[in-house]
């Protein structure tokens, strides 16, 4: 019973870990370059949850100084993750741009077909 309760009370971590592993698995297992980027994005997004979820305190409000409130959520993880989101968007955009160039050069975005054309590199 306690085990189940422990599981349920940590559900945010379970979701994070699931997304993390699912994303990483897609990156490794998929041969399609767009799908790889989707997996990479999922993997990066799971980290946002890892930071944000513990920042929330049950019953806490936004960090505004007011005598009526005593408990605040931690705002720092949100700020950090804003930066990480920007980085994630930039990475995805650059990755997609590279895939466009690869498609122009090779006519395909499947890894095995590219290796068949140019030899494994």
């Amino acid at each position, binding site marked *: 019973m306690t085990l189940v309760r422990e599981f349920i009370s940590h559900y945010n971590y379970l979701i994070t870990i699931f997304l993390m592993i699912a994303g990483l698995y897609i990156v490794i297992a998929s041969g399609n370059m767009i799908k790889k980027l989707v997996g*990479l994005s999922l993997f990066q997004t799971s980290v946002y949850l890892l*930071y944000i979820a513990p920042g929330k305190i049950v019953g806490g409000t936004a960090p505004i100084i007011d005598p009526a409130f005593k408990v605040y959520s931690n705002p720092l993880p949100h700020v*950090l993750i804003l*930066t*990480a989101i920007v980085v994630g968007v*930039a990475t995805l955009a650059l*990755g997609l741009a*590279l895939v466009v*160039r690869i498609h122009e050069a090779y006519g395909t975005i499947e890894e095995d077909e590219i290796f068949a054309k140019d030899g494994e590199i």
Partner: protein
Amino acid sequence: MKAIEPHLPVLPVLIPLFGALISAFFRRGTMAWGMALVATWGAAAASWLLLAKVLATGQPISYLMGGWAVPWGIEYRVDVLNAFVLMLVTLVGAILMPYARKSVAHEIDQHVQAWFYSMYLLSLTGLLGITVTGDAFNVFVFLEISSLSTYVLIAMGRHRRAVLAAYQYLIVGTIGATFYVIGIGLLYLVTGSLNIADIASRLGSAPPEFSRPILAALAFLTVGVCLKLALFPLHVWLPNAYAYAPSVATVFLAGTATKVAVYLLLRLFFSVFGVAISFKTLPVAQLLLVLSVAAMLIASLSAVFEENAERMLAYSSVAQIGYITLGIALANQSGLTGSIVHLLNHAVMKAALFMALGAVVYRLGAARISDMAGLGRRMPLTMAAFVLTGLGIIGVPGTAGFISKWYLALGALEKGYWPLVFLIVVSSLLAVIYIGRVVEAAYFREPTESNAKTKEPPLSMLVPILALAALTIYLGIDTRVSAEIAASAAKMLLGGLK
């Protein structure tokens, strides 16, 4: 000058950052090159002043970004170790810049040359930022600045495989950086701080049995950073990235990017976790030792069988990184000194070798070993520099490479790991073979028809190559600058242990 002096620690980052912005606006490659030259030399001047200041006082310099106090604001913290790394990164950049103009004009389309310099400066900004900052999350931001601009630099190569190599590096590099953020996130959850020194002191008060999140953080950080520094089984992205990137980008990456990642590993292992934690609770040292030796032998063997000279040198880089991590795994004074001094020595030697190959590409358009037949007579100075620095990679006494290997062997003997000395020698013998293959082609074969009329590269390319070759010899004879700073950095790292 008086007004600027307190802001010295931030200048190596700010100068290339604004240089990158400005050079992006130029249409002509030459103008952007001028900007890149000024910015690189400016950053180099600031870095060397910092190093001189740190050495003179012996105290770390702390700079509070925007005046915010330490655990909350971002702190830039310069001690002997990162001042040394700043110096070596800007040294490679400063010598590379005069070389870059002709090589870039030859290899990159006119209308994107300005972008190339802009990306180069951003990459420099990121690398210097990782080195100088004392904030763990700030490291991630700079890591991504340097990585994203590096992917673009690689994708600008001539062959269509360059884009593929850039894509593969993007996937691996992003996984590495994300692992790093996960590790920092776990540390932040446990300690509530992002300042590296502050994390270290808060971890220090924790009980000797470290909790699972901290061990998980150590594992994530180690794997993430090792992806970036191309430790042996995680090195697959490196040979393609180096082989297909434009020559100037290859020289820059080979000289600096992996070195900064090694610096980060040193910082994490010694300053954050303290060797006591990272080496007793988990068998990190043993793992690192085995992987380093594997890198030294297997990557050298791959280099022996490589036909493309640039890929050959790239595999050699993986092997040389094996030496550096070997010293970290030994974790004693001599071993660490060897690692840190090899950061500089390898940066100088590998930059010189890749520059010489860049000169061959400039004249011949490719750098396969078979193309280099007879070049010893056609490009005598370039190939002489190649041979000299090649001797350095092998570790012949009188060259820089010997100094590093000497300290590493000492470190291994102090630990009683004498078979390691034998393995270092075996790896050096493999280096004799792969460097020897180029020498054989260049000096003992008749020139082919295509390279019978080749001559030396332009003076602006030749002088930097010769300067680095001379530096290889100088660092092998006069170790006052390199080895003594490295020794004091090693002492500081080991002294900070709990």
